[in-house]
């Protein structure tokens, strides 16, 4: 009779409790109770049963829970992290299942996030690589490299950066945003430069269609993994970079040599587009006008076009001026220094090679050079050498002290000077032996013999080849006299006419002879020789010749020439002269006296 099982259950319990005693009584009571309950609580009982039914129905329960679930989550999150912790295993499982089912779903969802993270990691690696690249480039030393090095130093960039900068020259010409699935063009942008040039641009729709076709073609034709995608097309200096996203791809057409950073710009633009337009992308049915607002996102791809900055033009005039002045001054100073140094070396070389000069010290004192040494008075003056070397005296401080050089040249020069060598004497030094040759006065020879030994470096004096001047003169006079003869009258001791005039001349000469001989300590023996012609007897001629000779002696005595020098000799007819054909003349010539002189050394 109970309306619901629970009630029935209570009844059963109740009945079990009091089964023995008043079963029938209880039953009645129960019935009444039930009826009472029903009367009182009918609406509530209905409600209750509805609720119970609701709770038991899983579908209905799910419905109600789903309504409150988001709110419940929000509230729980605000309170604490228990929900997150509780959900963790569930989410892990969910991810696993999702990946197992189709990894692309998760990848697509993570695409906008993963990109920047990966790029950051790559950038780090690249910067270290750039460092090593820098190291490698350090070793390049071309003229251009040096110029770039200077620029790097000046602008504060690394050398590798400058190298890349200088070698870069590119331009992004077009950018295509293409729907992957259909190959339809979503947006197309052309660089203003291209437009201004009036370059013909092919229909972007068809180009993008063909573009997708090419990708499929490559994938189909060659063994390429399904997840691989085309990234770059290159032909000459034209490059197309393709960035792939889950629903759209970005193709940038550029000419030249673009840096890595540009690729990153493309990637970022694509990621942003995916992030902001994900729903629109997935629902794309062909209406590309909805992608107009994507254009600003694509702008940066076009704008990152630049040619190598001509930084050189930015060189400030002040910098250039100062640099120029300083470098010129440095150059001048350097060249002046070098010039002086070079001439100084020349001077030193000259001094070193010059005999009679000894360098004891050289140094640099401030801007001047200092030199000290010994110089022989007979040597070349160092100042002369300095002038020859082209050094001004203001540049050089010198201190020269005299000394005696012992080279033969100097000993000889000194000897010449000390001995007061006359010009007629030629002095020569051989193995410290002073050899004189030529002619010198006797006195000089005697002095030289004595004084030469005092000269430092001279061990002995040799005058073998030296001719005594006086001796020579004596000889000359002697010969002069010996040439002379006086002619006599036939048979007599009388001179022929005019012969007496020759006497005074003879006397003079004889006197000269005598004084000369005396001055050099030589003894004279003058033989006056008389002769006759062939006429007459030998005895007669002999005595006549003797008389003639004696006459001469006496004659000379009257002229104050001491007879001790003379010896009168008569030789008669001997030694006749026959120098002419005329016999008469011959006879005349033979009637004469002549002289014969001997010069004898006294020592």
């Amino acid at each position: 009779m109970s309306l619901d099982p629970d009630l029935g259950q209570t009844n059963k319990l109740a009945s079990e409790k009091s089964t023995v005693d008043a079963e029938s009584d209880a039953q009645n009571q129960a019935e009444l109770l039930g009826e009472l309950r029903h009367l009182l609580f009918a609406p509530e009982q209905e409600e209750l049963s509805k609720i119970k039914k609701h709770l038991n129905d899983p579908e209905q329960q799910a419905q109600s829970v789903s309504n409150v679930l988001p709110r419940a989550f929000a509230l729980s999150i605000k309170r604490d992290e228990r929900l997150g912790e509780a959900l963790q295993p569930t989410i892990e499982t969910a991810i696993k299942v999702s990946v197992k089912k189709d990894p692309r779903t998760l990848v697509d969802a993570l695409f906008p996030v993963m990109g920047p993270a990966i790029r950051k990691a790559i950038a780090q690696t690249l910067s270290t690589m750039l460092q090593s690249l820098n190291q490698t480039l350090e070793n390049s030393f071309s003229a251009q490299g040096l110029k770039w090095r200077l620029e790097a130093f000046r602008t504060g960039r690394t050398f590798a950066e400058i190298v890349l900068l200088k070698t870069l020259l590119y331009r992004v010409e077009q950018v295509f945003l293409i729907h992957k699935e259909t190959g339809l063009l979503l947006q197309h942008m052309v660089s203003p430069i291209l437009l201004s040039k009036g370059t013909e641009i092919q229909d972007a729709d068809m180009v993008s269609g063909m573009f997708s076709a090419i990708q499929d073609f490559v994938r189909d034709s060659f063994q390429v993994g399904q997840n691989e995608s085309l990234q770059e097309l290159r032909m000459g200096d034209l490059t197309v970079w393709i960035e792939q996203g889950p629903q759209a791809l970005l193709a940038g057409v550029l000419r030249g040599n673009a840096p890595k950073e540009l690729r990153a710009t493309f990637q970022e633009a694509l990621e942003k587009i995916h992030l902001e337009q994900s729903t629109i992308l997935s629902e794309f049915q062909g209406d590309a006008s909805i992608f107009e607002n994507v254009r600003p996102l694509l702008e940066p791809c076009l704008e990152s076009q630049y040619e190598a900055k001509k930084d050189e033009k930015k060189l400030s005039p002040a910098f250039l001026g100062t640099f120029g002045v300083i470098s010129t001054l440095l150059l001048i100073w350097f060249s002046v220094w070098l010039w002086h140094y070079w001439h100084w070396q020349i001077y030193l070389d000259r001094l070193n090679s010059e005999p009679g000069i000894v360098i004891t010290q050289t140094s640099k004192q401030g801007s001047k050079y200092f030199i000290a040494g010994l110089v022989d008075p007979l040597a070349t003056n160092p100042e002369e050498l300095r002038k020859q070397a082209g050094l001004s005296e203001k540049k050089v401080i010198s201190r020269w002290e005299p000394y005696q050089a012992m080279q033969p040249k100097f000993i000889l020069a000194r000897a010449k000077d000390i001995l007061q060598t006359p010009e007629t004497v030629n002095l020569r030094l051989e193995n410290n032996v002073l050899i004189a040759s030529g002619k010198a006065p006797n006195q000089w020879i005697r002095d030289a013999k004595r004084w030469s030994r005092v000269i430092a470096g001279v061990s002995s004096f040799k005058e073998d080849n030296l001719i005594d001047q006086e001796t020579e003169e004596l000889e000359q006079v002697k010969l002069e006299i010996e040439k002379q003869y006086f002619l006599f009258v036939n048979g007599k001791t009388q001179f022929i006419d005019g012969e007496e005039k020759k006497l005074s001349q003879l006397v003079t000469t004889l006197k000269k002879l005598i004084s000369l001989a005396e001055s050099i300590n030589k003894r004279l023996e003058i033989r006056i020789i008389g002769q006759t012609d062939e006429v007459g007897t030998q005895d007669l001629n002999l005595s006549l010749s003797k008389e003639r000779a004696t006459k001469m002696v006496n004659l000379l005595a009257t002229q104050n020439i001491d007879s001790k020098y003379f010896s009168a000799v008569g030789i008669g007819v001997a030694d006749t002269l026959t120098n002419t054909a005329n016999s008469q003349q011959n006879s005349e010539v033979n009637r004469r006296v002549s002289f014969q002189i001997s010069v004898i050394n006294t020592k």
Partner: protein
Amino acid sequence: MIQKKICMLGAFATGKTSLVARFVKSIFSEKYHTTVGVKIDKKVLKVGSEDLMLMLWDLAGEDEFNKVQMSYLRGSAGYILVVDGTRRSTLDKAFSLQKNVEEAIGKVPFILVLNKADLVEDWEIDQATITELTDQGLVVIKGSAKTGEGVEELFLSLAEKMVGA
């Protein structure tokens, strides 16, 4: 303007190229067929009051040496099967292609065009066959590249089918 990708399929030498040559804008030459296997053309037409741009993927014809690349079909909103009315075998080929396409991209609107309608004497497909096809629910259009018959109608029908769907 709305864009839709459509593909042109058919056996070798069914006249696909001639069929569309005069009526679509193309910037790519015929060699793309043999090198890449596809040539992109563009056709703009008015469907109702709206302009619609059709990107035509003109696929290279199939024969014993070349199979049509199914990957090109991806993302198509519709396709055109071209048959050479003077060769029955090309009709069979069209059917097999259609099956392949359906396998690859699912149920996508298409039009069957019987080309070379001007060669009446050599015609191999009789009216009975055509009726059979239309009864099956296929849209069949007779056309001729030479005369231009049926070309505009062809694209318009497909467009309507795509938009309608």
